[in-house]
């Protein structure tokens, strides 16, 4: 199969993957809390319902921005699997995230605006890591594309255990999990109401949710990069990491943005940077 087909498959299947993941997440979370929980397909029902609901827009610019956010999120995955340069992919990913910030900031509401500001903080917390991670992956595999990394004879995770650990830490931000869910959380019970999405309704919220499903699939693809010998192994690693995220989500409270920044940068610098330094020192 050509990379183009992979890209197309990502665009088509990632929402199914992300939605099912969210469904499993909700059931597992509920069980950890001693609840029965919703049916597996509940996220799909939710998005279907959101699409049917009347949409109220504070600022008409929000909708094109959110469609672009969804589009870029899908494009990030498509570009990754389609064989584009890894570092370029990370920049497209950052752009996708930025569009959500712009959409939230466009609503003239204090909660939404404060959510947008906090999302900028978490972007600041996570983006350096993703760039560093891709640099590291490119360095150890001497390849710069998804296919190239998968074809490499080096098992990335063995070379980059620090990067793997830091990835699990930083992915918490992207998966909107406690303790790092400061700008938006899965349930709207926080000091910023629903943060970023406070002023989004109906299909706008559905776009955000769909984009999040793409994002989950994208993070899974990143994990596959780290376990480049075998795709099933990468999926398994992602499942383990995700289960860990859910457990931590159910065992911590939300922390404040200062600590989010400090802990993710500490993870990036110590784990990721230390790992790279070690490789450098060992002369590879």
């Amino acid at each position: 199969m050509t990379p183009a087909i992979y890209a197309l498959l990502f665009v088509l299947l990632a929402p199914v993957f992300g939605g099912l993941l969210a469904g499993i997440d909700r059931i597992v979370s509920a069980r950890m809390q001693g609840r029965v929980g919703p049916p597996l397909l509940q996220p799909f029902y939710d998005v279907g319902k959101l699409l049917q609901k009347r949409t109220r827009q504070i600022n008409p610019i929000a909708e094109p921005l959110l469609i672009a956010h969804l589009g870029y999120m899908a494009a990030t995955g498509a570009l990754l699997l389609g064989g584009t340069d890894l570092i370029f992919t990370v920049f497209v990913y950052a752009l996708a995230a930025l569009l959500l910030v712009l959409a939230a900031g466009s609503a003239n509401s204090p909660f939404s605006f404060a959510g947008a500001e906090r999302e900028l903080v978490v972007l600041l917390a996570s983006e350096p890591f993703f760039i560093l991670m891709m640099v590291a992956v490119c360095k150890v595999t001497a390849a710069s594309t998804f296919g190239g990394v998968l074809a490499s004879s080096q098992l990335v995770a063995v070379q980059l255990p620090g990067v793997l650990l830091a990835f699990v830490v930083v992915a918490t931000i992207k998966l909107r999990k406690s303790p790092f869910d400061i700008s938006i959380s899965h349930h709207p019970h926080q000091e910023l109401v629903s943060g970023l999405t406070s002023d989004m309704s109906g299909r706008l919220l559905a776009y955000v949710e769909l984009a999040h499903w793409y994002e989950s699939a994208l993070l899974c693809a990143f994990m596959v990069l780290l376990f480049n010998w075998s795709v099933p192994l990468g999926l398994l690693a992602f499942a383990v990491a995700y289960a860990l995220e859910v457990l931590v989500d159910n065992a911590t409270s939300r922390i404040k943005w200062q600590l989010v920044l400090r802990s993710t940068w500490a993870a990036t610098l110590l784990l990721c940077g230390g790992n790279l330094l070690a490789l450098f020192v060992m002369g590879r």
Partner: protein
Amino acid sequence: MANPFRLPMVPRALRNLVSRPATRLYPTELRPRFAGARGAIVFDVESCNFCMLCARRCPAAAIECSREDRSWAIDQLTCIACGVCVEVCNKKSLSMSAEPGRVHTRAEATPDGRRPGREEWLKPAPPPDLTTAPVSAAATD
């Protein structure tokens, strides 16, 4: 900050994961009510003598009673199930059911302005007392 890797909730979360959930799938699965629970007021029109005590004492003004019309009505959505009416009823026409009342919705409101949850009774006047009524009248009946 304390040791960030010591998360005391983890054992509990894991234990929950493998044990039975504490919730049930309401409303398909219901818990039985305890005996003596205050659910809803049940009225028996047959024994009522329309003394109006219940209507007068009801703190929520949920009961309407008229001696002349021999009518009795309760607004179940206004009723606070405190049980005062049951206590003051001399004829034991009122009782408290442990089962909660029906769920009423706004859709029940009729165009004539009747509130959902309003339940009404009318008791026809008793037949004339046969011992004092003229015999002929009784015969024609």
